[in-house]
Structures are given as structure tokens and as C-alpha cells.
């Protein structure tokens, strides 16, 4: 039975071109990029070429790209680095209730350190209202951090509008763009974003590499201390092969973005239409229009999302319930609860995230299997049986 991977929001398979680009930096060009001799220089060249590709994907300058070990590290660097750099200015950070845990748990850590954090609410589609950002900013605010797109429900936030507000109020603006970089156009020459986090393994690159864009002149302290790598901004001997892989993934994403967006949107459109037609009592979640082209998310009444996930896995489909980072827990998603979805409905959440290698035939097979899985689970559900008596 063909295994179909419909969980690209969790991670993506490294592309063959990415792997090929990385191999020389494991086999021959394994030097320490900080070394002055030719062995080190050959490794450093790979990093700098990758940096140029990443910058080009974002409309940034290469020197504005700080390479990190993950998107989570980039998020930590942004929040902790800014709060440290600007502690004489203030002690207040604004974020949203639907951020990834990399932001929420870092914010909670900063609260323990004595900072104040405002968690902005969202509407039923998971969208932050820009006037709420404006109203929350005080003279002690040092940073606003709002994710570009939500990893669970796919809603794309109005970061251009929020960025303009932050510029007007002279507050630094960070966005966790882990779900959007490489998948939707981002041009940092056209929107006001001071810091941006990204992760290689979300755009067909390897795991263990990320980056933090820091606009030239933005005030940020280092997060990782030690050697002078990354121009003193992020210590630690670089994951050269991984960085080269990220660079290649960025280059390919820039070249193929238009095609990929169209391909993914077509797959999701077919899938969503099919679910509407063939599976009763399913709520689509996230914004209907301002959403990631590769994300379809639902709440299925009367069943647990994890049960759906496990049964679909038995049928050869890899999907997600809630977010991958929280799949070990049985609590409903904080994102869905923040959107006002009742817990008993939120427990039936399902996320399907397609990718460049998925096909329309695979979506057709999913639409053949999914209704049967839901019907079977509902027939066994004590909640559904009690409601029908």
C-alpha cells in the first residue's frame, strides 16, 4: 500500500538537489569555517553562498541573515535578544494567543524573568486584529511578535499592517515565518519586519538548521555566547552541510514558488470540496481566504483527532491532529481554543498539509478513505451513540 505523506507542515522531505549540495560538505569540505587555511575557507564559502540564497528569497541583505540551529532557536534569539538589548527602554512584549510554543514558552520564560507579556486574542478565524496591536503598545513595549501563518489552521496574519503600526510606534516587530518562508512570497524591502524566523526542514531542507533575519540597525543581543561566528551574533561551530542544504532549498523555493503555490492550492481545493461533500458535521478551521495554500484543517464532530490520525495512518495516510509538537498530549489545541472553538469540538481536529510531491490521485484516494474512517469511528463513539438515543 502506498504511503501518502500529507503532513508537510510538520516537516518536509529533503529534496534530492539539497542532499546533493550537502554531500561535498560532509565528504571533502568538512573544515572549520572559522579557520584561516584553505580547508576552512572552502567550508566558509558554502556558508556564504547559502546566506546569499536565503537573503535573496526574503528580499534581504546577506549580512542581515544569522544562521541558527532551528526555527525555535531563532524565535528564542529574537525574544530574548531584543528584551535584553532594550531593557533600559522597557519590559513589555506583545504576542498572540495562537503562536507556536517556541514563542509562547519563551514569552512565559521572560515573564518569569520579570517582563510583562500581552497575549492578543484572535477572532474565530484565528486572525489578529491590527488595531489590537496598536492599543496594546505602551511606552514600555520593546517588541511585538506575531507569527506570519499559523501552523495548525493555516491563517496568514496581516503582518504588513502590523509592521506598519510597529514602525509608526517605533517598536521592533518580529514574525515567526517558519510556515511561510519558501511557500508564499515574502519581500522584506516592501513590508516592515525587523526580525524573522525560519526553519530549513519546513522548505525541503535538512533538520537542525534555521535562520533569524535581523534588519540592519535593529537592536538585538546575542543569544548564543562563545566564539565569534556569525559576526559575533551567534556562537558555535556552524552546521556547514546543513546550512548549505538550507541555501539550496531557498534557491529552489524562490525559483519554483509560483508553481508550488498553484499546485498545493489545487490539491487543497479538491480535498476541501470533497470533505464538504462526503463527510457530514465537519467544520473547516482557519481563515477561508487568508491561509496557507498547502493547509486544510478541520474539526470532526464526535471523534477524537488522534483516533482519526491513527486510523488514517493504518490506511497509509500521514496527517496531523493539532500540531506535531503537541501531539503527545491529549489536551485540545491552544490555537483552536483561542479561536473560540469549544473543547469537545476542538478535540476532533485534523490537519492535512500537502506538498510538491503529492498528486491529485492521492487526494482522490484520501477522499475515498476518510469518510469511511470517520463513519467507523462515529459508530463506535459513546458520545455519538448517546446523542442519537
Amino acid at each position, binding site marked *: 500500500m502506498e504511503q501518502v505523506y500529507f503532513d508537510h507542515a510538520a516537516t518536509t522531505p529533503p529534496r534530492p538537489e539539497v542532499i546533493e549540495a550537502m554531500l561535498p560538505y560532509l565528504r571533502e569540505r568538512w573544515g572549520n569555517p572559522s579557520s*584561516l587555511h584553505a580547508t576552512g*575557507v572552502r567550508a*566558509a*564559502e558554502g556558508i*556564504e*553562498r547559502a546566506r*546569499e540564497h536565503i537573503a535573496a528569497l526574503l528580499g534581504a541583505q546577506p549580512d542581515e541573515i544569522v544562521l541558527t540551529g532551528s526555527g525555535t532557536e531563532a524565535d528564542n534569539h529574537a525574544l530574548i535578544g531584543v528584551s535584553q538589548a532594550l531593557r533600559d527602554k522597557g519590559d513589555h512584549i506583545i504576542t498572540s494567543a495562537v503562536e507556536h510554543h517556541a514563542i509562547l514558552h519563551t514569552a512565559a520564560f521572560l515573564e518569569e524573568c520579570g517582563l510583562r507579556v500581552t497575549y492578543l486574542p484572535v477572532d474565530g478565524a484565528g486572525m489578529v486584529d491590527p488595531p489590537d496591536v496598536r492599543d496594546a503598545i505602551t511606552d514600555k513595549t520593546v517588541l511585538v511578535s506575531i507569527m506570519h501563518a499559523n501552523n495548525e489552521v493555516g491563517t496568514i496574519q496581516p503582518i504588513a499592517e502590523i509592521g506598519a503600526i510597529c514602525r509608526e510606534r517605533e517598536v521592533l516587530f518580529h514574525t515567526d515565518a517558519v510556515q511561510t518562508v519558501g511557500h508564499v512570497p515574502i519581500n522584506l524591502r516592501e513590508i516592515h519586519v525587523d526580525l524573522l524566523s525560519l526553519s530549513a526542514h519546513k522548505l525541503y531542507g535538512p533538520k537542525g538548521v534555521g535562520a533569524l533575519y535581523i534588519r540592519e540597525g535593529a537592536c538585538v543581543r546575542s543569544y548564543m555566547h562563545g566564539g565569534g561566528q556569525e*559576526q559575533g551574533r551567534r556562537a558555535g561551530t556552524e552546521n556547514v552541510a546543513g546550512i548549505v542544504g538550507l541555501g539550496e532549498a531557498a534557491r529552489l523555493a524562490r525559483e519554483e514558488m509560483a508553481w508550488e503555490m498553484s499546485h498545493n492550492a489545487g490539491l487543497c481545493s479538491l480535498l476541501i470540496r470533497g470533505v464538504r461533500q462526503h463527510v457530514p458535521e465537519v467544520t473547516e478551521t482557519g481563515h477561508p481566504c487568508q491561509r496557507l495554500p498547502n493547509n486544510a484543517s478541520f474539526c470532526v464532530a464526535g471523534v477524537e483527532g488522534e483516533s482519526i490520525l491513527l486510523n488514517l495512518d493504518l490506511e497509509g495516510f500521514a496527517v496531523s491532529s493539532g500540531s506535531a509538537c503537541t501531539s503527545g498530549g491529549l489536551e485540545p489545541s491552544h490555537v483552536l481554543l483561542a479561536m473560540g472553538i469549544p473543547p469537545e469540538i476542538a478535540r476532533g481536529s485534523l490537519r492535512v498539509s500537502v506538498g510538491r510531491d503529492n498528486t491529485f490521485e492521492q487526494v482522490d484516494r484520501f477522499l475515498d478513505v476518510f469518510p469511511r474512517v470517520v463513519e467507523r469511528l462515529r459508530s463506535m463513539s459513546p458520545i455519538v451513540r448517546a446523542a442519537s438515543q
Partner: protein
Amino acid sequence: MNWVKTKLVLEGMEPGERLEVLLDDGEAIQGVPRSVRAEGHRVLQVTPLEGGFRLLVERAASEHE
């Protein structure tokens, strides 16, 4: 890092084109001209500036790997 960035820019240039590189005093001015020559490019001029140097480099006619 100075040499790495210089090298990447030179790779994108046509043979015979010239590049101006601004370098701090110290390790950079000691290492970069040597690396430029080792790659086969020409160092046309080294001009002292306040706190550093200006290097004028001519891209070689052929690649030296």
C-alpha cells in the same frame, strides 16, 4: 570571512573587471592580498586609509581552483 566574501564577488565578475575591497588593518590586510594572488587574480593597488586599506583587484582571465 573577508577573503571568502571577496572571492564570492570575484567569481561573479567578468575577467578583467576590477573590484575595490575595503579592509581593516591587521589580519584582513595581511591575508586577503595573499589569497587574491593565490587564486590567480591581480592586486593592482593597496591604498592606506584611516583605520584600514583599500585594495584594487583585477579578476583573472581563468578560474584557479
